[in-house]
């Protein structure tokens, strides 16, 4: 893995937001470059190799989505996280998902931002084709779609398996509730109730109940993470 894979380009025109972004990403071990305008983003984007590029939707000179498209035309393949203040109303951002990139609605929590950036950055890592994923004593078989701990099968509904698979694939990383809704249910709204927590609670009982140690951990204020002790 080269150093470029921990390098991020932040495109944001508001100085305070930009400062907060740089600070929190730097604290998480990223090397952060900042561009305050679309044109600056374009010149920096082609000059260095970035793991992830975050672009504000509304820039003073060029529209954030246009910046992304231009970078793509210039042959820049780095995943892009568009940050929009328009939210649901921003249909153009909704359309981004098809391209594999992600978007985040302002205002956002920095943990959510970090979780998204981590998930996007992972895509530029080498993906090993494995059919069985393991975390601690948990093994999930992606072909037969079954899970077991210490060889003992865990009965999971298809959706519950999908949820566990997504958590396991992001082992050691924080996964937000919105990310779960998006990737497990293909839903793009906030159900404004604790339904995700309730659902994860059920999966957790099945996976962690009567086991030596828990694998699914709650990350307060953001979501969940799967990791083995030690």
């Amino acid at each position, binding site marked *: 893995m080269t150093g470029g894979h921990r390098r991020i380009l932040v495109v944001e025109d508001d100085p305070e937001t930009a400062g907060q972004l740089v600070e929190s990403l730097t604290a998480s071990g990223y090397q952060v470059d900042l561009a305050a305008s679309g044109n600056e983003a374009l010149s920096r984007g082609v000059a260095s190799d970035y793991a992830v590029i975050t672009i504000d939707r509304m820039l003073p000179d060029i529209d954030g989505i246009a910046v992304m498209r231009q970078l793509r035309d210039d042959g820049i393949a780095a995943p892009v996280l568009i940050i929009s203040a328009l939210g649901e109303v921003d249909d153009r951002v909704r359309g981004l998902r098809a391209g594999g990139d992600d978007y985040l609605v302002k205002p956002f929590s920095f943990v959510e931002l970090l979780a998204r950036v981590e998930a996007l950055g992972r895509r530029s890592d080498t993906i090993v084709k494995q059919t069985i994923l393991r975390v601690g004593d948990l093994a999930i078989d992606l072909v037969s779609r079954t899970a077991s701990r210490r060889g003992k099968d865990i009965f999971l509904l298809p959706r519950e398996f999908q949820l566990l698979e997504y958590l396991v694939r992001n082992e050691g990383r924080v996964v937000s509730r919105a990310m779960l809704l998006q990737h497990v249910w293909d839903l793009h*709204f906030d159900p404004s*109730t604790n*339904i995700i927590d309730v659902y994860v609670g059920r999966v957790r009982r099945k996976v962690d109940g009567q086991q030596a140690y828990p694998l699914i951990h709650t990350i307060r204020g953001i979501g969940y993470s799967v990791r083995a002790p030690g």
Partner: protein
Amino acid sequence: MLLAKTLTSSTFKLALIAIGTFGVIVSGIFSYVYLSTSSYVRSRSDRAIMTEYSSLQGAYERSGRDGLIALIQQRVADKNFADNLYLLADPSLATLGGNLRAWPPAVTAPKGWTEFRAGEPNATNRPLLRAMLETFPNGDRLLVARDISDLDGFADQIKTAVISSIALIFAVAGVVTILVTRRTVGRIEQINATSRAIMLSGLDKRIPLRGTHDEWDRVAENLNLMLDRIETLMGEVKQVSDNVAHDLRTPLTRMRGRLEKAYHGERVGEDDQLLIGDTIADLDAVLRIFASLTRIAQIETQARKGAFRTVNLVEIASEVVELYDAAAEPDGTRLSIVGDREVLVTGDRDLIFDAIANLVDNAIKHGRAGGQVVVANENIDGKPVISIADDGPGIPADQYKHVFKRFYRLEHSRYTPGNGLGLSLVAAVARLHGARIEMLDNAPGLKLTLWFSAPTS
């Protein structure tokens, strides 16, 4: 004022163009009638003169000047030829015979047609004569004429009739135009006056009806209905903004109070963390209200209709039931799905999911602990139908129409989680899909049914 408006109105201008065009056509027709009538009458008189001229000329050629004089005398005496006038003069224009006293000084041409007035130059009522002239080889001159004064008078009469008819048509059309335009302008002016009054003072004004049930009354009726609708909507908007103000102020006040207390107090790590955590939670609640409001507003713009596809209600409902089954479990509520296996609708999967999720969530929250929530999908008379029923306390029938209002919360649910926007969202999604919402007493409980329209293939 009204007259000025009448004269500048487009109706009046159009009418003027119509009158002008019509006037030109009528004038053309009348001129043709006038010209053809007068030329017909004149040609009859010309033929009579010509016949007479020919026989006199023949007589001159056959029997010379004397023979002609004799014939003229004979004609003058004959009553049958009383309309004709004759004069034969020698080269010095001295009268040789005929019933005209002297050669008219105005006639100088040697031969051919001419017209002149007979009698003394300053006498009144001088008859107009039309004559054929001939000058014989020896210089004698012959004049055969007829009095065409009557003819001329007839033509004048036609001319007068034509001109006065045209004038009358223009006058009547002009007056009618002004009256009709005035009426139109008057009605429009009433509508304008009402519009101005509304802009100045408020939405309570209405356009007066005349009770004539004509198109103007219908326009006024429709505009009044539109104003009623706008007034209702404005009322709702005001209600909503009051509620927004209330629902946003409550958490904002809590946040402000907390921060103020922390600002003046000592820094205590653990307390601060708790305070900040609570403040972030309250802020998230405020942001969630904003998100819900913009989402409802976006649905109401109908923009999403473009992305409608055929979706299976049962599939969506099953996903919702699977997700919310986990939420029903702690209360011991049984959540089940019944009915057909395929119920197709044309719509937006995300929005339908959201609506069903809200309804199921409500049913679980407001139903009976240990009760039942049943989601039923059916095709009834070709219409896709989904109903969500609980066996809880239900809601009073007089509250049915209110629960879809934004921020409306029943008294007993004031302290359960939720922001009073869930059913507004359901209503907005239903409206977007052209679905009808029906609420029934499930005895006990509430049964809410969405009647979709048949899917478009």
